[in-house]
């Protein structure tokens, strides 16, 4: 190249698209770094693909910010956890938790559930009491009274329970809760509703509503609610790890959830480093293989050249996607298999291009001089040929990156992604398979696709910005 690296840089920097590409790539890397630091590496198997982990999340609800555009305010899904407790002794010993939450909505919450984790006790099993105080001051005492079952005989104290999976009470399904509400309605409003009627009418309206003139619980009491959790214990060393109260709503988080209740924002974030990883590893390996073989083929000539070119011909004559599908299906859905297959079918085009460039570069006189002074072929290829094609190779490497990201996304969409590593393509595949598009779950379909587009586009922009730098003829054309 007949101009310095500084010229090249300024040439690159004049184009607006390359600036945009660089800015985007910095952001992508920033997010990926954050995810790598804050997510466990086994996120896919340990959290994302584990339905238990998402049990308390709402299924298939839009992001909460959609409420700003809507005339009817839907209740936000709340998962309220606390591990701050206080031990008290007033005749009986209790461990107390307090949960406060705000409810502002035009529609009643869908359900409520209560969970308790990490319980240790030494003597009689503890008893849990819940009391809900509404913003208007009315109180539902002993909304839930739940006794922890006795440990099986033969076990020695301390008894440790609810470590792996918590004690979970789904309130609408609990007879105790129904009875408690019936009692509350009787004493507070003189109502004669039976527990069964309460269940059929939906108990949320009694938990979060107040009666209108006809005695129907249609008004939602807005404001700050308080849930008091008292765990009655019978030994002073008993402990409770944390409690959780879930108010089932119709909107959740920044990105909404899928039909399994998975928080899409979390999955989408994890997709950043995975996409970049696949893109970079594949493009690097592809360019290494492609350029080494291309330089060898062009410089050595003869039988080596012939062999490499015939292999290229065959690879170029194959339709890529069907072969990719075949190989990944046979070899197994593993991220490394996908990368290897993508590299295997990616290098041939580059080899052909580099070979033709090397054939030209080979004619230069200084190469002849090198040969005359006894330089080895390897030396000449590495020191004289490679630097001449290096800028082109670099551009191609950037150009291959979105290709790899898109190919992986396509494979994932066809259901051939690595199941241990959630990607944007896989999130879309789930959305397609479960019929989310036909239900109009746009928050599930649009964001992952947009992320794929933006990521690919930023590499395309950079490659486009580099093109006039490495191909001076294009510079004149502008």
């Amino acid at each position: 190249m007949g101009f310095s690296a500084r010229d090249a840089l300024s040439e690159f920097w004049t184009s607006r698209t390359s600036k945009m590409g660089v800015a985007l790539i910095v952001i992508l890397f920033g997010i990926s770094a954050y995810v790598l630091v804050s997510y466990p590496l086994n996120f896919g198997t340990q959290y994302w693909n584990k339905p238990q982990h998402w049990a308390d999340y709402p299924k298939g609800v839009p992001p909460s910010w959609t409420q700003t555009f809507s005339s009817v305010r839907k209740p936000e899904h709340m998962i309220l956890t606390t591990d701050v407790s206080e031990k008290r002794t007033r005749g009986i010993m209790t461990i107390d938790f307090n949960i406060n939450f705000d409810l502002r909505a035009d529609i009643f919450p869908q359900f409520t559930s209560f969970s308790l984790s990490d319980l240790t006790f030494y003597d009689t099993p503890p008893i849990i009491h819940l009391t809900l105080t509404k913003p208007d001051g009315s109180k539902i005492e002993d909304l839930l009274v739940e006794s922890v079952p006795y440990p099986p005989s033969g076990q020695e104290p301390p008894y440790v329970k609810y470590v792996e999976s918590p004690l979970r009470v789904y309130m609408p399904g609990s007879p105790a809760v129904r009875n408690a509400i019936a009692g509350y309605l009787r004493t507070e409003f003189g109502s004669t509703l039976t527990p069964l009627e309460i269940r059929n009418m939906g108990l949320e309206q009694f938990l979060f509503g107040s009666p209108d003139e006809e005695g129907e619980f249609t008004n939602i009491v807005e404001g700050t609610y308080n849930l008091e959790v008292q765990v009655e214990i019978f030994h002073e060393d008993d402990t409770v790890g944390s409690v959780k109260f879930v108010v089932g709503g119709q909107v959740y988080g920044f990105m909404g959830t899928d039909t399994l209740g998975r928080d899409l924002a979390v999955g989408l974030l994890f997709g950043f480093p995975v996409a970049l990883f696949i893109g970079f590893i594949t493009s690097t390996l592809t360019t290494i293989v492609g350029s080494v073989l291309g330089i060898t083929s062009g410089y050595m000539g003869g039988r080596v050249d012939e062999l490499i070119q015939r292999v290229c011909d065959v690879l170029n004559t194959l339709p890529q996607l069907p072969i990719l599908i075949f190989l990944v299906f046979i070899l197994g859905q593993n991220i490394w298999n996908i990368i290897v297959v993508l590299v295997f079918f990616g290098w041939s085009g580059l080899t052909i291009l580099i070979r033709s460039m090397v054939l030209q570069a080979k004619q230069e006189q200084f190469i002849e001089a090198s040969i005359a002074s006894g330089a080895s072929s390897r030396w000449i290829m590495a020191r004289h040929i490679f630097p001449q094609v290096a800028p082109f190779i670099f551009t191609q490497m950037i150009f291959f990156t979105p290709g790899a990201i898109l190919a992986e996304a396509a494979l994932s969409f066809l259901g051939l992604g690595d199941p241990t590593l959630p990607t944007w393509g896989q999130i879309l595949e789930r959305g397609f398979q479960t019929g989310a598009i036909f239900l109009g779950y746009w928050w599930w379909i649009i964001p992952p696709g947009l992320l794929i587009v933006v990521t690919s586009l930023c590499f395309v922009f950079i490659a486009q910005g580099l093109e006039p730098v490495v191909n001076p003829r294009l510079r004149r054309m502008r």
Partner: protein
Amino acid sequence: MRLGRSLLIKALSLLMVVVVTLLLMNVILGATGFSDRMLGALVNEQVRVYRQGLLGTIANPDEITRIVAEHEETLRRAYGLDQPWVMRLPQMIWRVMTFDLGEAKSSQTFTGSTLIKDLIAERLPKTVLLITTSVALSAFLGITIGTKIATKPGSRLDRFFSNYSAFSYAIPTWWTGLVFIMVFAVFLRVLPAGGMYSSPPPTESIARFLDLLLHAILPISTLVLALSGAWIYMTRTMVLNTAQQDFVNVARAKGLPENLVMRRYIVRVAAPPILTNVILGLAGSIGGAILTETVFGWPGMGLLYWNAIVTADEGLIIALTFIFTLIYVIARMILEVLYVILDPRVEY
């Protein structure tokens, strides 16, 4: 005569590609132990059925075990399981080459046949319809727009289409399809979400054709959106390259009208390299068609492929990979012939 010979050589080399691909596929199937597993499962299933049949007729359990073992041995020999997989290669390749593709596990034709051969015969025309229409449309758009913007490089239109082609490369075809379905079929309810005909399909031929047209709008737009960007950009670059040649200047200096220069001196000369790129880009359109069919439930080969993946139907996947390679090779052959017509200088 020389032309015929060079085309023959090309055809033979493409045939070689098909054979090499088949060989590689079968080597992979054999070396990974996949084909042993597959045939083993087939034999076990047949043995199970055979044993069931015997249970009613023979009372002595030892006798049954002996006969079943004998039958299993015969079957294993018939499928070549008594030999290492390498020995089965010629037979396997021959079977595929003669379209003896076996049966599909969970897909069937409209008339109920599960033979992969019949399935492909039924689905293939639908895929060809989709691909050729979209490729023809994209080619038309690419050549008209590409030559137009090449006359004014750097103009606003030129920049718009440069960005358009970057986007059309970066947007996954299938995702465009998903968004189209959501916008036009789910939210606006103006176009059908998928399939090829309404159910039940209209009986009258004109209504039937219109129904097909209505169902084809979204899949074809999706594919055209994905393919046309590359066409436009390619045509533009090739035309620009040619327009800088001396003979074009001479033609202009002679005072020939600009559209004549464009048609005879630029586009005609730029056509062969454009076609070369088309040949190379064909693989992309086949891949795009597989994904588009999946998204829109277009009952062609692509959807069949997806069904095969979802139901883990190994035999069907192998057969389809072969057929897609074959289609691709045939399409390339057609383009090679076109190439020779376009560029008489070509020699092999």
